């Protein structure tokens, strides 16, 4: 074994990872084009690309650039930040079952947003909505990690997450319960299901800045997640400020999830599923999983949002409902797969 063998082994592994990431990127681009083409008026991929760059008929241009582009951008960005948040939380907690939705972050963000809507504090399209949603999400993740403590086992994290998401759900129900206007209640109920329908560039402007900042914060911590593979103590001895890292992750997840929930309602389980799908091709290194998990999240939400437009039904299916319907069985499958570890070392 020499330095050359070493470098070679590292290069082979890197090439495989790049291949997988490039394939994923191609898939995301394809799904974007499909998403722009599907709706009441179906457009071919060629027509979509033409319209996107200012060619084709005026009608096609309006449909693609003004109606479907914001929706597609949101699906891409929100799926991405959910996948990234899941991978980051799994890295921080060294636990493959960690995810924003299991910890009640989207539910808490939804509560914050519902509060704003119900109290009529602000217009649905004002920045108050994402800001309050972000604060609520921050509060929930912070509370979760504070309750669970350092080196918390899975059991504690899941139980605390269950408690927090139940509490956020109950608080949301209370707000709706107390609301005197039935139209507001109905609007909130539908909004909570999670949807990307009829979203405009105003919504994009509302969510995107927070998603970008949150995503950048999470990505900047990549190598610290890798050091955490050895546990908090060893990571600290390698020069990682674990306390600060936790705060960064909570902030990044809250910004991303809060911003996303404020414009789409709750969309669950993408953060849990995305990193899992990437472990076979990319490996278990939590730092390397971040970008592929974000791309997978984008692909999943784009695909789900295309699916709800294709599935024939009398009333439209909400994308958040679809991701949960698919996500929960996947979660059960994961529990089954991790059963042995769960039974043995929960503590």
């Amino acid at each position, binding site marked *: 074994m020499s330095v050359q063998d070493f470098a070679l082994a590292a290069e082979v592994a890197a090439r495989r990872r790049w291949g997988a990431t490039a394939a994923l990127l191609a898939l995301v681009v394809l799904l974007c084009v499909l998403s722009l083409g599907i709706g009441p008026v179906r457009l071919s991929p060629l027509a979509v690309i033409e319209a996107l760059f200012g060619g084709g008929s005026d009608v096609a241009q309006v449909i693609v650039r003004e109606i479907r582009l914001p929706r597609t951008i949101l699906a891409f960005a929100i799926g991405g930040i959910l996948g990234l948040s899941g991978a980051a939380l799994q890295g921080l907690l060294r636990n493959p079952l960690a995810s924003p939705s299991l910890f009640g972050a989207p539910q808490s963000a939804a509560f914050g947003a519902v509060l704003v809507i119900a109290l009529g504090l602000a217009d649905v399209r004002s920045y108050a909505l994402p800001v309050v949603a972000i604060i609520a999400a921050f509060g929930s993740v912070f509370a979760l990690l504070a309750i669970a403590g350092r080196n918390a086992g899975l059991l504690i994290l899941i139980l605390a997450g269950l408690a927090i998401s139940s509490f956020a759900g109950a608080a949301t129900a209370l707000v709706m319960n107390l609301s005197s206007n039935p139209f507001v209640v109905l609007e909130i109920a539908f909004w909570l299901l999670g949807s990307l329908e009829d979203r405009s560039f105003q919504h994009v402007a509302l969510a995107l800045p927070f998603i970008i900042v949150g995503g950048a914060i999470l990505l900047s911590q990549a190598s610290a997640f890798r050091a955490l593979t050895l546990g908090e103590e060893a990571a600290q001895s*390698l020069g990682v400020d674990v306390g600060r890292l936790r705060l960064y992750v909570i902030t990044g997840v809250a910004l991303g999830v809060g911003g996303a929930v404020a414009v789409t309602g709750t969309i669950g389980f993408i953060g849990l599923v995305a990193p899992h799908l990437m472990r076979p091709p990319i490996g278990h290194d939590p730092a390397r999983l971040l970008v592929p998990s974000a791309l997978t999240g984008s692909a999943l939400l784009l695909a789900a949002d295309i699916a709800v437009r294709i599935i024939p039904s009398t009333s439209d299916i909400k994308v958040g409902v679809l991701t949960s319907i698919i996500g929960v069985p996947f979660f059960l499958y994961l529990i089954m797969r991790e059963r042995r570890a769960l039974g043995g070392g929960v503590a």
Partner: protein
Amino acid sequence: MTLLSAAALNVSLGSRKVLHDVSLSLAAGHLVALVGPNGAGKTTLLRALAGLIPSDGDIRIGGDALASLPLRERAKRFAYLPQGHMVHWPLPARDIVALGRYPHGATDPARLSPRDMEAVLRAMQAVDVTEFSDRRVTELSGGERSRVALARVLAVEAPVILADEPTASLDPRHQIDVMQKLRNVADTGVLVVVVTHDLGLAARFADHVLVLSEGRLAAQGAPDEALSEAVLASVFRVSAYRAEFQREAVIVPWADV
């Protein structure tokens, strides 16, 4: 020559005072065994020395006050091996050892500088783990995993190694093997502090023994002084069978039942 010293070290965890007025002075090139009954504060002392937990008192490393050093600088001076060789994700052994270069700015095992790569390779060769470089650590046996963990610590190339029970849960052959490897490292001029429950290993391999009892240093010195009949009786409540085998000291703890 003193490399690491502590004066009037006091540590409290929550409301409980764990270490009382511990003062010590350790030299480069020594293998120091830190022994004591369960709950004596051994791990706490090791953590405090590495600056992983806050403490009152003056810890000095190579002439600098530990408190004045930033996290990254501490990480270069202390290589810390926690109990249990915990690895949370099934990474290849090579990537785990490469984490030892993290304090030197090499945070990505796929992009190591030639210097970092050589350090990783040296560390792996020193403890004989190059053959399972590509294997996932979670698939290795306990003995192999402990050697990978040791390689990770060696790769830091720090002047001080603090190892918390590196021989726990290993079979006798591997216990001796790990201690011998640490002995070799100490002989290259590194200060190695090892927490152990095995008084026999301490007597055989250590230059200097620290005996901790209820948060206080009960004795310290060369193995035969620090592990004297009186100390074993008062601290561990055991006596010992003592002998010499192949010109090395043998201690077998003994308690009447």
